[in-house]
């Protein structure tokens, strides 16, 4: 960290730091310590992790976590660009409307959001009623309590992060660059891929890292929409801890998530710092 930290800064930061150390850092260290304590005997070993990695349930949950997060990241990018473009280029009135719609999920509790998706995707939900109504299917589709439902729910929750990340960089684009590309013969799709995307890369990468890591560590929405039979890592951890009372496995999953989460924070800092430097160098 920077060398010239002022005494005032230390004094102002002390209460918050103390709070974080007592309530976050110490419990995390305690958790890590517990995950390294084997059931049999004393001392430290990786036994809990070895058991965990060998278990098929863990492997499936890890794979599911990654699949969900990749899909959520891709979907938020695909939905985020058009929304951010509209929001940044529309009249102030339309922009406000778009932003309210995008931000609104933030204001709801996860339970309310999940219940909303149940109403839409459930057996007697809007989607199934419609598909049966137009005669496309005879029996209701299983759209909830599975990985699909987690992906839909998480995309909904995490879309604002992507839109806000993209919006900040789209608003900084010099419109003359798009005009120049157009005069040189680039049609709007070409302009999007050759001018808008390269210029918004920092925001895109920030958004993707943010969405991916939040999706990996999300609990409430996957728990409510995914059901017990297709747990992702966080849900699996909950099941070990509160359904099976297998604390050694639960703490090991927590350890995995902790390392993953820290890894993403470090990666994010590294990438954003590099991009900031490049952006500054490039005017």
């Amino acid at each position, binding site marked *: 960290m920077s060398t010239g930290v002022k005494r005032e800064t230390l004094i102002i930061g002390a209460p918050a730091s103390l709070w974080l150390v007592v309530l976050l850092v110490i419990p995390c260290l305690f958790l890590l310590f517990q995950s390294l304590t084997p059931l049999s005997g004393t001392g430290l070993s990786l036994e809990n992790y070895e058991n965990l990695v060998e278990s098929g349930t863990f492997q499936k949950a890890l794979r599911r976590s990654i699949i969900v997060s990749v899909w959520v990241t891709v979907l938020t990018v695909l939905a985020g660009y058009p929304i951010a473009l509209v929001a940044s280029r529309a009249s102030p009135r339309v922009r406000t409307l778009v932003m309210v719609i995008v931000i609104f999920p933030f204001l709801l509790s996860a339970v309310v959001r999940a219940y909303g998706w149940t109403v839409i995707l459930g057996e007697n939900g809007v989607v199934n009623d419609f598909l049966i109504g137009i005669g496309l299917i005879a029996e209701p589709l299983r759209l909830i309590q599975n990985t699909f439902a987690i992906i839909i729910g998480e995309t909904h929750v995490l879309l604002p992060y992507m839109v806000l990340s993209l919006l900040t960089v789209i608003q900084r684009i010099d419109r*003359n660059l798009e005009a*120049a*590309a157009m005069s040189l013969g680039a049609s709007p799709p070409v302009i999007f891929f050759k001018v808008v995307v*390269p210029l918004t890369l920092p925001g895109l990468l920030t958004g993707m890292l943010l969405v991916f890591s939040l999706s990996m560590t999300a609990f409430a929405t996957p728990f409510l929409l995914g059901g017990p039979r297709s747990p992702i890592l966080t849900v699996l951890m909950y099941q070990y801890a509160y359904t099976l009372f297998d604390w050694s496995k639960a703490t090991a999953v927590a350890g995995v998530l902790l390392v993953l989460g820290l890894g993403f924070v470090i990666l994010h800092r590294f990438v954003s710092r590099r991009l900031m430097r490049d952006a500054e*160098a490039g005017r």
Partner: protein
Amino acid sequence: MAEVKLTGLSKHYGDFAAASNVSFDVESGSFLSLLGPSGCGKTTTLRMIIGFEQPTAGDIFIDGERINDIKPWLRDLGVVFQNYALFPYMTVAENVAFGLKQRGVEPAEIKRRASKFLELVGLPGKEDRFPRQLSGGQQQRVALARALVIEPRVLLLDEPLSNLDAKLRAEMRFELKRIQNETGVTSVFVTHDQEEALTLSDRIVVMNHGEVVTVGKPKEIWERPTSAFVADFLGVENIFAPDGFEPGAVVIGGKRFAAEHDGQGNRLVGLRSTDIEIGGDADAGLAGRVQQTSYRGSINTYVVDVPGIARPLYISTATDLPIGSNIVLKPRDGAVLILDPDMEIAAA
């Protein structure tokens, strides 16, 4: 090379007319400037030619073809912007190649043509630099090469020299003229700088409040501005209402001075500070008293109070005139400009 023709081009935003009934021709291979203060409609007119704005009325023709409904990316026009608008993440060569790539030109041919045009703009060997590694003048040269390499039907320049400092601006002005001569590309140049317009153009269109005020060759517009707005914009310091007109003469401060006019009243007269002579016969000239002086080196400017004229006159002369001295002055022969009263004359 192509000829451009605008007929009755207008752009309205609600009740506001950004451009109103703009018509002019640009001869094939010639250089035309759109000159006027900010908000006069010159940039709006340019943007309609490029296709960034849709006209509310009127037509744009290039070589007789109406292009109103042609998409901007299919118009084959080269555009140079005030802020250069180079793609920051591309090298100089990639910037110049952009338009050729869109046209599906072979990579080897792209390379050849890019080098050729970088040489034309005086930047050979800078292919692998990034825009941020170049000075403002060099960036504008790259922008020129990028616009010209596609061999556009028309080159459109939106205040391309305004971001450069004074010395570089003068240098780039000559460069722009040389490059235009060498390529022979039909050019439309938007500027608020009368000097740029006068030195570069074959013809100048002066605009104000969204309308064309006058069209003419630089010499015509400079020597014989037809309206008070044009004269004021071209830096004619003294514009005022005369006492009256007589056949072949204008009466100022009770004295007659020769001036050609069509006999219509309600006109204003214009007089450049450099077109006023000092001394001579007191009966034939105007008596004045020096109020203020501003030192400018070889030629100084004086503010002189002349009884019978509402505003003090600005006079530029090499003669040394102390404040408070009484002088006799008169316009040089044929220097009195007769002007349409198309703007308010500020009170003294």
